[in-house]
């Protein structure tokens, strides 16, 4: 019986008997496992910046050593009370100053075209910014958004995302907000969110989305995925203005798209891996012709 044990585990370490190999191949398991391994082996994480990491480590080490060295000098000064009091007063003033300064400063995070960025807020809520987007905040649970981002909000006080076309309010949930041009599109992945726009209000629960076009809120829709598609390198649109779809293409690939102004809408998706396929995925169903420059930096689209 023990020779059946941990079969897949031993498959990885190449620790199988010829009979076991044959059996795995015959049952189709081999192929299934191999296809999983093939994809997983291509997964990578961003490179860790070791030089920077080590610098940071040295800095915080020096800082903490300086702190432990301090008490010696402090002991000598202890008898002169004035300096101590003055010192304390100065630090209090400094702290008040720092508090006022920090309170009024806004944090701004932006992504250039062709890049995305994850940002962790002080309450451990996370924001995943899509290409060419930005957030600004003073208080960390009130965020101004330009563009598109996924929010994964920790439970607690109300959390609001303010966009030019409306406000999204939540208690603790994850959702994607896309606010480009005159459009606001919100998808909710867990919990509940309330979307406010032009006096209209709607509450979304898991798997529901709403689209606001030119200030008009449309019917709620259902969707099937469990996370924002752009985080899996796909941009998906439901009856979206074709011009804004092309702008998204520009942002994702950091390219220039030259096209006439369309008055049509596009439903479908494009991937973020190959510019050729992406352009094809947009142009083919719309019956458009296109030309991609040799350096792949610009695309010209014609009817």
């Amino acid at each position, binding site marked *: 019986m023990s020779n059946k044990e*941990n*079969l*897949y*585990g*031993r*498959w*990885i*370490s190449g620790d199988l008997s010829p009979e076991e190999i044959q059996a795995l191949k015959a049952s189709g*398991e081999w192929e*299934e*496992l191999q*296809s*999983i*391994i093939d*994809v*997983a*082996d*291509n*997964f*990578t*994480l*961003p*490179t*860790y910046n*070791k030089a920077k*990491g*080590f610098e*940071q*480590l040295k800095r*915080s*080490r020096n800082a*903490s050593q300086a702190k432990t060295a301090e008490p010696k000098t402090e002991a000598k000064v202890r008898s002169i009370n004035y300096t101590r009091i003055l010192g304390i007063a100065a630090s209090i003033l400094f702290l008040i100053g720092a508090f006022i300064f920090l309170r009024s400063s806004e944090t701004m995070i932006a992504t250039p075209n062709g890049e995305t960025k*994850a*940002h*962790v807020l002080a309450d451990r809520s*996370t924001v995943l910014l899509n290409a060419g987007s930005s957030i600004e905040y003073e208080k960390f649970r009130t965020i101004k958004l330009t563009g598109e981002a996924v929010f*994964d909000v920790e439970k607690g006080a109300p959390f609001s995302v303010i966009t030019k076309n409306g406000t999204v309010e939540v208690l603790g949930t994850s959702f994607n907000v896309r606010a480009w041009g005159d459009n606001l599109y919100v998808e909710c992945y867990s919990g509940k969110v309330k979307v406010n726009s032009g006096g209209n209000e709607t509450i979304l629960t898991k798997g529901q989305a709403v689209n606001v076009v030119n200030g008009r809120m449309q019917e709620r829709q259902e969707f099937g995925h*469990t*996370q924002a598609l752009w*985080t*899996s*390198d*796909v941009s998906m649109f439901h009856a979206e203005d074709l011009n804004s779809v092309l702008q998204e293409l520009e942002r994702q690939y950091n390219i220039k798209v030259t096209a006439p102004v369309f008055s049509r809408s596009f439903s479908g*998706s494009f*991937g973020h*891996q*190959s510019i*050729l*396929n992406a352009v*094809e*995925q947009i142009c083919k169903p719309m019956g458009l012709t296109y030309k991609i420059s040799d350096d792949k930096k610009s695309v010209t689209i014609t009817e």
Partner: protein
Amino acid sequence: MIPENICEEKVFETVFNERSEQLRNFLYYKSGNLALAEDLVQDAFGKLWENCSKVTLEKAKSYLFTIANNLFLNKMEHKKVVLKFQAASPNTDTDHQSPEYLLEQEEFKKRLEGAISSLPEDQRIVFLMNRIDKKKYREIAEELGLSVKAVEKRMHKALQELRKIHKKV
């Protein structure tokens, strides 16, 4: 031979260069949070430096994983993990493949990411250390303080679970 002393900056830096990325990855597999993982790498190496006189070079790596693990437990209440990966070598041939095929590939990658994220933590970590950090069972066992057999078993269970994504189509 005199064992190398990790209190010396040169030695310590070597340890950092060899281990920091793996440790960061390990913490990411645990938490699904890259920023947190990188913070904890700092904390763990900070602790190692503080205690450098008590830890031999040999013991440093399992020490780092243990410390990182403890720091993580202190910091996080348990939360659902969502892992994201980049595709290492975007197939240079993509231009000749149909959009449908590529979409299917993307769909599969997404499902696999989801399935990996949903694995029990101990299986997930072993699977990813083996596949992404390309570590042998023996190395994983050493770092996590497990037997090689236990690592093999976790890998087996992980694959058993992941194989199910083929049936969900």
